[in-house]
């Protein structure tokens, strides 16, 4: 009956989502979530290397105390572009839009996301935002930092605020649509039997992320609009000359932009939960706590934003409340770290590349998170605000956390995405490069910041004693760059020369491994019915032992 009614794809086993059409149109007008994920992967990689280029410019400038590589104004534009591209065009979309897009329907046994065309629209919005920011960069750039603080952004600078703001606005709507799509899909499209407490933790993490995208992004969107109308029409919402308050801009901006760091880290935490359990061959310790801690981070994340404004002139009482609440974010984050390490206990651990990244994540995220608690402490924050201590802290979370998680996840699911295995030796080498390079780059910055080196300065010639640590940091960044270029090369190489992957090369649990690699266009030939708990590695091991015994 079914095959008679749909003659369009009879040979489902032969064609997969990659071979289902080769024309450019079949990619650019696709509504297949897996193809859109690949489109995202390509465009986001592009912006990652663009943002990385600016990072290298910054590090090269800081190699010497004097501002000799570029003019200080150019330096301002370089770190603004680095921040804007990395935040809006890399960190926020990187995991949800690529791995999330690819895996959410697969992991819940659905044929596609709930709104495939909106999904495609969100990619086009991302590209439009990317074109805007690139155009802005090529025609003069912005010098406010990625935070657009008023009144500098509204009344003083003559750089291209409105175009950069529009780019962030458009990219914001791209992420709103992704979040909306995920929430509806996770609520409405789960396979029969896949109850909430059987969902993979990656799904929980993306669900929590989507909540923040929906609730937070519109606030920063209107804030950007208000900055734009202040520049264009002189509506002085944040104008101190009219009795407006520039700090209100910071309130509204951070109401989104602080939860936005959880948009970045939560999906990576979801990946780590998957990796740890898969490579320990053991059900994750305290499933419910890990799942709910994602939602807790999302909710508590909305209560802490003003810790970015402790020295900006907010009320001391409010600062105490925000400091207190900030410590609470540490609780669900620590729950995750403790549960991951407890999962390792008495597991059969294998040290494949994804697991190396997972170990890196746990260590680096813990450092990043703990230094975040230092910064939440009012007294210490006054001392280190706007120093390299803050820079090192958030790079430990963003790069050591988000990027490590993303790379781990990309290696883990690469066989599913491409149908090929990557070269394990090279991958381990690059994981080592990333870990060593990262720490060499950013650990000296903790010390620099604690000694008082301020961020966002091209010139530190009045404190030449900082040069040694800066040279170390720059050296580390080149090691890190090699660590990032290597995967790019061997992933592309593996597309052609990598050994073919079977459906489940890691013998992992999860619905995504029960369909072919790469999956067919509609994911599953038959909608799966789930009768087992998440991460049932005990049962899988038992089954394998029986098969061995019988064989």
């Amino acid at each position, binding site marked *: *009956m*079914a095959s008679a*009614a*749909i003659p369009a794809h009879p040979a489902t086993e032969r064609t997969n989502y990659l071979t289902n059409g080769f024309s450019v149109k079949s990619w650019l007008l696709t509504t297949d979530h897996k193809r859109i994920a690949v489109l995202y992967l390509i465009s986001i990689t592009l912006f990652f290397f663009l943002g990385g280029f600016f990072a290298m410019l910054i590090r090269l400038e800081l190699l010497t105390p004097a501002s000799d590589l570029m003019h200080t104004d150019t330096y301002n534009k370089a770190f603004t572009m680095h921040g804007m591209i990395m935040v809006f065009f890399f960190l926020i979309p990187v995991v949800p839009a690529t791995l999330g897009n690819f895996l959410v329907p697969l992991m819940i046994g*659905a*044929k*596609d996301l*709930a*709104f*495939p065309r*909106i999904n495609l629209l969100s990619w086009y919005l991302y590209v439009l935002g990317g074109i805007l920011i690139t155009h802005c960069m090529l025609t003069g750039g912005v010098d406010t930092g990625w935070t657009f603080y008023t009144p500098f952004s509204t009344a003083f600078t003559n750089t291209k605020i409105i175009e950069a703001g529009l780019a962030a606005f458009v990219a914001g709507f791209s992420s*709103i649509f992704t979040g*909306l*799509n995920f*929430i*509806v*899909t996770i*609520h*409405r*499209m789960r396979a029969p039997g896949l109850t909430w407490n059987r969902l993979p933790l990656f799904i929980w993490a993306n669900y929590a992320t989507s909540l923040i995208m*929906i*609730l*937070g*992004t*519109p*606030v920063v*969107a*209107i*804030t950007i*609009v*208000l900055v734009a*109308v202040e520049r264009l*029409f*002189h*509506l*002085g*919402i944040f*104008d101190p*000359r*009219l*009795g*407006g*308050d520039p700090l*209100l801009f910071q*309130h*509204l901006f951070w*109401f989104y932009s602080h939860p936005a760091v959880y948009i970045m880290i939560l999906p990576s935490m979801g990946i780590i939960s998957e990796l740890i359990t898969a490579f320990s061959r053991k059900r994750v310790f305290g499933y419910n706590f890990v799942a709910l801690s994602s939602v807790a981070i999302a909710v508590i994340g909305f209560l802490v934003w003003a810790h970015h404004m402790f020295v900006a002139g907010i009320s001391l009482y409010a600062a105490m409340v925000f400091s207190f609440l900030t410590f609470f974010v540490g609780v669900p984050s620590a729950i995750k770290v403790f549960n991951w390490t407890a999962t390792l206990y008495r597991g059969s651990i294998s040290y494949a590349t994804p697991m190396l990244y997972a170990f890196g994540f746990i260590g680096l995220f813990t450092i990043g998170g703990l230094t975040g608690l230092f910064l939440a402490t009012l007294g210490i924050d006054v001392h280190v605000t706007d120093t390299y201590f803050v820079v090192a802290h958030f790079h430990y979370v963003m790069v050591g956390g988000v990027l490590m998680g993303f790379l781990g996840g990309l290696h883990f699911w690469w066989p599913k995405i491409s149908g090929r295995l990557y070269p394990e030796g090279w991958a381990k080498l690059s994981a080592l490069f990333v870990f060593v390079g990262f720490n060499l780059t950013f650990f000296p910055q903790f010390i620099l910041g604690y000694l008082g080196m301020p961020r966002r300065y091209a010139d530190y010639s009045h404190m030449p004693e900082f040069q040694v640590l800066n040279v170390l940091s720059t050296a580390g960044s080149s090691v890190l760059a090699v660590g990032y270029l290597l995967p790019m090369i061997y992933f592309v190489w593996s597309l052609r020369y990598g050994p073919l992957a079977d459906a489940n090369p890691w013998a992992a649990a999860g619905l995504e491994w029960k369909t072919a690699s790469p999956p067919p266009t*509609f994911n599953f030939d*038959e*909608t799966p*019915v789930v009768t087992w708990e998440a991460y049932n590695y005990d049962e899988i091991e038992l089954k394998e032992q029986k098969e061995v015994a019988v064989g």
Partner: protein
Amino acid sequence: MADSHATAVETAAHNPALLHHFADEQQQKDAASLGMWLFLVTEIMFFGGMFCAYLVYRVAHFNAFAAGSQQLSIGLGAFNTAVLLVSSLTVVLAVNAAQRGKRKQLVVYLVLTVVLGLTFLGVKAVEYAEKFEKHHVPGASFAFTESFDDNGKHIPVNPKEAELFFSLYFAMTGMHALHMIIGCGLFAGLAVLAWKGHYTPGYYTPIENAGLYWHLVDIIWIYLFPLLYLISRHS
């Protein structure tokens, strides 16, 4: 499983609007509804940023806000509120007509909604024009000589702070008007499609979702009216 798949294919044959990746019509309908409501939440937060600014500045500069508010026309504001409420009624009647499969009624209610929406925008234009004449538009030519009439006492206000009130007035009503314009375009398009018979009692999700959007824009105005027009009006 094979059974449900077969029924899904059968319903697909019945309803060309059912997309392949949904199991059945109910799932598709619920997904569309949930998606629309989540979008409405983003709209609430979008306007929420401006409501936050309003709250902060009203508390800080109450006299200027009251004086500015007293310069707005209650008559036009109340009339526009009524227009929007009636348009919400026509929207809900349009959804009702779609449920019953009454094509002509549906088109009439959709067109009525557009007409009411345009009426609202017309009145808004009249109000904006008056602001230009009275130099109440923020910018270089802004002037504010009026004082806050508090129970017959005339309290002078800082014109700069009044400019802040009008900045918010234009930002909030302007963003609302932009949503009205989008809504009018949306309903005009729906009216054309409804005339061509695109919607049946089995499939009218676009009418329902556009209706939800329209109601939300109405609700925002329900709050904007007292917050902007009715500050300290008693004597």
